[in-house]
């Protein structure tokens, strides 16, 4: 069996990372890879893909080869416990207890560990197995993403012996294996988003030792070159028109400065235009062309 690949898609809120994750998964599915898109959220963003099925923990096929699933700490932990104890009755005793709910909510990093354990379970061949070539994770935004990835490191340090410690070390190995796991940081060409993305890149790189790739979304890409724009801006035209040209020119220049910062750090960046379309389904189609990763 081929190793199940993992792609984490993260980024600051408002950068469009969920749409990027979907488009990426969609593209891989079209290429024939059996792909699972996982959303880590309390309510489903991808529900718009289907009005027939309620999207939840169990993977559901929404397009040929493309499956969607929504995970949180409690469901992942439950899934893993069931695999171990193999008894619904015992499972009920554990999870119907208010203790378990709270434990998952606040129990230090347990929720994150359960999720990252589930994500890597295919690659590690541990726990309940799912038959996919690729898992694309629409992961949390910056800070929470770091908490997710840090969980196995933190617990491995706090608990040195026992099955949990062994598993944590195993998870860490998978998270660091560049043949298996890749990381994408979605950003937009704005000062704050770029700064935060760079910090996230550095944290992932220094702490985990991985090399994330940047995807810059919502770039204003006019149909003419910058030189042509400058020429146009010098022509005597109506006030409104020149206002528009100046607006676009400013944008293009400002974006270039922002892009340069992440290129300096991580090399080539995947650039996605700001699509002037409102429909989410059109957007996926258009966006996936830019995500041939």
């Amino acid at each position: 069996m081929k190793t199940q690949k993992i792609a984490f898609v993260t980024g600051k809120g408002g950068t469009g990372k969920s749409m990027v994750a979907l488009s990426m998964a969609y593209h891989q599915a079209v290429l024939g890879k059996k792909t699972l898109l996982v959303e880590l959220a309390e309510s489903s963003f991808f529900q718009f893909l289907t009005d027939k099925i309620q999207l939840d923990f169990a993977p559901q096929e929404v397009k040929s080869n493309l499956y969607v699933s929504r995970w949180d700490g409690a469901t992942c932990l439950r899934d893993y416990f069931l695999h171990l104890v193999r008894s619904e009755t015992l499972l009920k005793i554990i999870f119907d207890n208010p203790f378990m709910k709270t434990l998952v909510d606040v129990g230090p990093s347990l929720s994150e560990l359960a999720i990252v354990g589930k994500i890597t379970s295919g690659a590690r061949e541990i726990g309940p197995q799912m038959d996919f070539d690729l898992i694309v994770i629409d992961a949390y935004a910056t800070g929470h993403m770091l908490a997710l990835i840090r969980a196995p490191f933190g617990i491995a340090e706090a608990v040195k012996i026992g099955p949990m410690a062994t598993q944590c070390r195993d998870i860490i190995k998978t998270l660091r294996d560049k043949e298996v796991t890749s990381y994408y940081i979605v950003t937009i060409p704005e000062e704050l988003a770029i700064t935060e993305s760079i910090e996230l890149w550095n944290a992932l790189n220094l702490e985990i030792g991985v090399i994330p790739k940047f995807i810059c979304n919502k770039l204003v890409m006019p149909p003419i070159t910058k030189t042509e724009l400058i020429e146009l801006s010098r022509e005597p035209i109506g006030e409104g028109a020149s206002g528009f040209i100046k607006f676009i020119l400013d944008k293009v220049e400002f974006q270039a400065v922002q892009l340069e910062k992440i290129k300096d750090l991580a090399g080539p960046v995947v650039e996605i235009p700001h699509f002037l379309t409102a429909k989410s389904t059109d957007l996926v189609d258009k966006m996936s062309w830019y995500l041939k990763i």
Partner: protein
Amino acid sequence: MDEILKKYKVIICAGSGGVGKTTIAAALAVRAAESGMNVLVLTIDPSRRLATSLGISKDIDQDVFVPQQKFKGKLYAAVLNSKKTFDDFVMRCATNPEVAKKFMKNRLYIQMSTKLSGSQEFTAMERLYSSFESAKYDLIILDTPPTKHAVDFLRAPQKLNAMFTQSMSQWLIGAQEKSKSFFSRFLGPSQVFRILAKVTGAQFVDELVDFFQNIQAWQEKVGQRTIDVHRLLTSEKTGFVLISSFDSNKIEEAKYFYKEIQRDGHHLAGVIINRSLPVWGRTEKEGPSKLANYYEEFVKYYSERENSFVEFQRSVAPGTSFVRIPDFNQDVSGLESLTEISHLLVGGRA
């Protein structure tokens, strides 16, 4: 907007991620200081340049008098230091500071505090409340943590309180007591522990029990604080300013948030739509030849949002102020550009 600044003691800038909350919060504070108030703006994650121009940093835990200001009033600013705020809170809760200090070295505490303070909702509320209690300011403006949904921020204190008040802590601690009657009455706990120990290892379970025994001490204090904060947030003293960008998803989100805060008894003071299309886009009909199609697409894109925005404006209670801030195409960080924005906030068209 000027009236709002006078009317409330606390203004909470809410909105989902990436809409420019921090900048707007700072601009509102600048305006308040200009009109002669003593104002504090509590920021969560300012851009480096904004932090520099306000003279604040994560390492300074105090309210800072913003340098080089020439306002009638006084402008103070601070960055939320979550770890510090959380530790302070734990120290204040503890009956015995020695025990608290020891507990703070507990590895699970460190992890939990990182998680709780990392989520920032609790610490932002705590910091807001202690600043409010100090009664040093005419107005406090709070920038809220970046949440996926604006509502998450409001739900956080209840969530935290639930964690302490649910019978869980007592239940867990009770389970460790060597009382036979306890085990005979409840079959659950020992089962849960056995399975948990099987999955995680006995060492982890021990650490866990120790941890929960310790945090039980905060239960009452956290509960009281939650009630106090809730009372402040629903009182006439607190107004919410909803910030949204000119994007259909964000406007939908804003509508939802509006419903939620109405339901929870909060007061919506105003709505600010950030990064709308500059005025030329709405008035000029013709674009330049080479860009004509692109221009049309652009205008169409924005006018679709315009419709959804107008619909939202109609649905909101009359008297709520609506302001638009155009897309500036640049980073706003200096006191001067903040002042410029603050003037737009006051005189801006709706």
